[in-house]
């Protein structure tokens, strides 16, 4: 149990604040009889019921699949665009403005358009995930390409390294931390986009459940689903962080 106690030790303050928050929620929920704020215990009970009845399983699986497909697409497309921007001034000037615009534009506005194009199927949600995450992946990939020390590139060049060899042995490893940061941010944005899109479309995935319980004021279930989404997003980002820490540690 050594690792558990060390985990508890390092995250002590967080666990403390979490406990305080839970307690506050429970107390306020019980003492003020508000329909909009059920006590935590009721929410957790609803959470258990939802989980046990299997009502969240299908939406969870649907959302996860859309997220995975979307992220893989974003990673491929964003890396391609970003690497191009980082290596070529021409590509940077040609595509840079779109990437910058895409980074700050309210992508949620495109969801109805995707819905019209792709219909109510996985394609719309995948497109939503891509729209939310591809630009941050591209931006970081471009930064990654520019992050290498010019003296190392000069060294490689002096040994007669080809452009490909310089990319493989210098630019890529030097940029790896930026790539991984882009991926992490991409996952966070992708989850956000996916849920937002699902709430908007209203009949699918976890977002669909939010809409469903929200419209009938089924507050216990609503909070249970929200809780699930928050934990889900944290786990997704945490997973990528862990993987990227492993990758960076490996090469260092």
């Amino acid at each position, binding site marked *: 149990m050594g690792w558990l106690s060390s985990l508890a030790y390092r995250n002590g303050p967080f666990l403390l604040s979490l406990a305080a928050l839970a307690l506050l929620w429970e107390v306020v929920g019980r003492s003020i009889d508000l329909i909009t704020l059920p006590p935590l215990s009721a929410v957790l009970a609803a959470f258990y019921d939802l989980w046990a009845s299997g009502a969240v399983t299908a939406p969870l699986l649907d959302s996860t699949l859309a997220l995975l497909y979307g992220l893989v697409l974003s990673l491929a497309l964003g890396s391609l665009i970003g690497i191009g921007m980082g290596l070529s001034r021409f590509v940077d000037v040609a595509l840079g403005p779109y990437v910058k615009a895409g980074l700050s534009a309210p992508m949620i506005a495109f969801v109805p358009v995707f819905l019209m194009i792709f219909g109510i199927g996985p394609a719309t949600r995948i497109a939503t995930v891509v729209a939310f995450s591809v630009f941050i992946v591209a931006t970081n990939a471009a930064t990654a390409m520019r992050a290498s020390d010019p003296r190392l590139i000069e*060294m490689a060049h*002096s040994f007669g390294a080809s452009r490909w*060899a310089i990319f493989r*042995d210098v630019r890529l490893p*030097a940029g790896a931390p930026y790539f991984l940061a882009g991926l992490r941010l991409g996952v966070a944005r992708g989850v956000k986009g996916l849920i937002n899109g699902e709430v908007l479309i209203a009949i699918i995935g976890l977002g669909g459940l939010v809409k469903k319980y929200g419209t009938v004021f089924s507050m216990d279930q609503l909070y249970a689903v929200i809780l699930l989404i928050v934990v889900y997003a944290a786990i997704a980002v945490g997973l990528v962080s862990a993987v990227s820490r492993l990758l960076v540690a490996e090469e260092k």
Partner: protein
Amino acid sequence: MTETQAPAISISNLTKFYGSPKGRRMKALENVTLTVGRGEFVSIIGPSGCGKTTMLKMVGGILGWDEGSIEVLGKPVTGPGPERATVFQSFALLPWMTVIDNVSFGLKVRGMAKPERYAVARKLLASVGLADFETSYPRQLSGGMQQRVGLARALAVSPQLLLMDEPFSAIDAQTRLILQTDLLDIWSKTDLSVLFITHAMDEAVFLSDKVVIMGARPGHVTDIIDVDLPRPRTEETRRDPRFVELTGFVWDRLRGMIQQDERAA
């Protein structure tokens, strides 16, 4: 002159301009003529900004020039080549690669398979005294050891010409003296020609057959001094009156230029 007799490096009437941001051209080198014979050790010394690094990059084939010519072993330079290898002031080791991967980097980009390039790298690591550090990473080594890796990497490609840009200037004074004798030791066992840039008068004189003194604005050669100290050079050499005399002479020439520069500024 047949090709086999051609000097290691032959630079003639070399002129180089850099474009400045304002669009004006800055003359970095003017009419530089210089020869490095086969197997010769030649140092270049000169005030900061006189174009030493610029010239070395051009000989290395990673920078173009405007007028004049550079020939290496009788052939005009058109890019980097397998007969030349460079040792860098900043070491320029790849931090994500182990020592042995760094040493075999030049062989890897030339397409040599791993077992073969590792075999070559091991020999060179032994020759620079780092046989036990194969699997270390550069950041785990001292500056002096890192530059030994840089030297081994350059030697691994079996060059005929070694280009060294202030290789020891980032290394502490004592380690530096040891690296100097080790470098001469390795050089004397090969037929390598060396072009060595430095800011240290004693280093230039101790190592070289010829010391080239350059002046700035624009960079040009002012003196070429033959160092007639016997080889092998040892710690005794540093106390030789002739060594002291030559070092003093180089300093006199440089001091004159630097003082002139300061008055002009």
